[in-house]
């Protein structure tokens, strides 16, 4: 029941905002939904920590990993959400009320899809929700309706959709592997993990390749990450914060769910060899990612790597791009470490614990989203000057620094 409540808060807020006309009403709904989701999510997470996984019907289910994700989504959502109010006041005057409405409604929809993705037990619904995150954010990336925003948003939509479609291919194959064993399973993760040891290892491996590429796109893993720096730097600062702070984690969360199944399936006969096989993918990706991130900082070898990846624009060339891009590089570093720990872990349970530990360990970096807020502020004040009065500016800085405490 709590799960339903948690999901209905942003969903209803999104609907109400798109119906309301007054700016103040929208802001109130938006703020109370953001804080409300944080409170309900907190209560839920504490409850799960003490007891068994919570589930309602066959579709929703939250265990400890979900609880962790709920907390990240709700917390970053609340911080970015409240920051967003000041941001939009500065950005859009009352002449652009339609855009303000679009912004708040899509913001809440975005939070809703992420919460649904981490609280559903049905892998198909999880896919639908993760594709939904793309659809909800694509207009937010292009909210200023300029050339670069358009380019970033189009690239984001087409790459993410194609990538995610491949993840669906993997989900279908996983479903096939399960139905070949036990008939109808309804595509739920709990039943899949229950029969994981009996699945056909070849098909599971094939499925996992698709899953890795597909959800890896969403988690910003190379080589399907090219949408990421552009979309992050073109999106409004609060959305940028949510993307790098949470959205990538949701992609990784999906990957972890499937990895748990794959690990169990391959634990028997093939153990070491098979493990090395699919962990080689992650290892390769780690090396690639490392080379990639070396690009903006590299000195002597940079030229070669530039040519290799056609990465011609130095992030520092464009100040506003540079800041959010650099935040992305930090974020990508955190993703690398998590992937590496996933690779090294032997069993499913251990994998979850290790990677969660890694995430907590790199908590500051996970919150470089807050850093994006700061960047946004710097950018605004540099380019727009002090539109709005001094008190508004102050409240900006206060919120940004509350978020910024996460950075260090």
């Amino acid at each position, binding site marked *: 029941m709590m799960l339903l409540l948690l999901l209905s808060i942003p969903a209803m807020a999104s609907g109400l905002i798109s119906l309301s006309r007054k700016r103040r009403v929208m802001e109130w709904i938006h703020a109370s939904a953001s804080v409300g989701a944080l409170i309900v999510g907190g209560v839920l997470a504490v409850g799960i920590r003490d007891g068994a996984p919570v589930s309602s019907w066959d*579709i929703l289910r939250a265990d400890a990993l979900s609880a962790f994700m709920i907390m990240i989504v709700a917390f970053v959502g609340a911080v970015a959400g409240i920051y967003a109010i000041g941001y939009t006041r500065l950005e859009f005057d009352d002449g652009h009320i339609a855009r303000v409405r679009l912004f708040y409604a899509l913001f809440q929809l975005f939070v809703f899809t992420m919460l649904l993705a981490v609280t559903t037990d049905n892998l*198909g619904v999880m896919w639908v929700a993760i594709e939904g995150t793309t659809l909800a954010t694509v207009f937010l990336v292009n909210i200023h309706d300029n050339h*670069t925003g358009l*380019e970033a948003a189009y690239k984001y*939509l*087409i790459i993410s959709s194609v990538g995610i479609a491949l993840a669906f291919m993997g989900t279908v194959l996983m479903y*096939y592997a399960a139905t070949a064993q036990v008939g109808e399973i309804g*595509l739920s993760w709990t039943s899949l993990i229950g029969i994981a040891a009996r699945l056909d290892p070849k098909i599971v491996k*094939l499925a996992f390749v698709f899953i890795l590429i597909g959800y890896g796109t969403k988690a910003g893993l190379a080589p399907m990450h090219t949408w990421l720096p*552009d979309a992050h730097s073109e999106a409004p600062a609060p959305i940028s914060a949510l993307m790098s702070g949470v959205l990538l984690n949701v992609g990784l969360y999906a990957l972890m769910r499937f990895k748990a199944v794959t690990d169990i399936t391959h634990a028997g006969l093939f153990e070491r060899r098979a493990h090395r096989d699919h962990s080689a993918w992650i290892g390769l990706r780690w090396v690639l990612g490392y080379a990639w991130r070396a690009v903006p900082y590299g000195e002597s070898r940079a030229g070669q790597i530039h040519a290799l990846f056609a990465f011609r624009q130095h992030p520092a060339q464009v100040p506003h791009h540079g800041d959010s891009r650099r935040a992305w590089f930090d974020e990508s570093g955190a993703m690398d470490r998590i992937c590496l720990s996933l690779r090294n872990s032997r069993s499913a349970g251990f994998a979850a614990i290790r990677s969660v530990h890694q995430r907590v360990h790199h908590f500051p970096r996970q919150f470089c989203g807050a850093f994006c807020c700061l960047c946004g502020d710097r950018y605004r004040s540099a380019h727009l000057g002090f539109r709005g009065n001094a008190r508004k500016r102050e409240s900006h800085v206060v919120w940004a620094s509350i978020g910024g405490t996460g950075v260090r």
Partner: protein
Amino acid sequence: MVLFPELPFARVANLLSFLFLLMSFLLIIRNSLSAQVRMFAVQSGVLSALAAVVAHFGGSRELFGVAVLFAFIKVIVIPRVLTRAVSKIGIQRAVAPYLGTSVTLGICAGLVVVAFYVMAPVMESNRLPTADGIPLAFAGVLIGFFTTVNRRRALTQILGFLMLENGIFMVALLATYGVPLIVEMGVFLDVLVAVLILEVFVYRIKHNFDSIEVSQMGALRG
């Protein structure tokens, strides 16, 4: 391993699978956008017929509903949306892919071979009479993916994405008689919304860059 290859069900399913792949090939060699959209509509029609056949022989009423909904969305709604976009944009000159037609055809033929190789474990273990079509469906996925990366025009990229989606739907259909209904509904919804959003983007790209060739957009280097 098909147990009863002599059944009419298996034959009809195979025939429709071949038609599906044929439509993919016809789509990639067509040059005008409106012809490509028509090919896509025919392909979706073939696919919904296949879904109806599987529903009939498999005795699933749910799947029948999925077939009808699929036909409604992918044969009527989405081609209409795309045709409207084509006529509004109003350019019908030859599409400029990165690779020429003959090279493209060669690569796609290679992709069909790859599909047979990759789907071998699925074919081996599948005991449904529809198993023979699985590699063809997967070839459709690969060709759709290739079309998305090979074409410069936003609209053709969208068609490539839709072919990819069709292929995945067909793999699910042939290998397991379709994924659960709730998932299917969600996927349809997502695809429909994605196409509507992409249509808006095509207009905006046309408006901003005065062309729908995505190579015009090169300011950002991700």
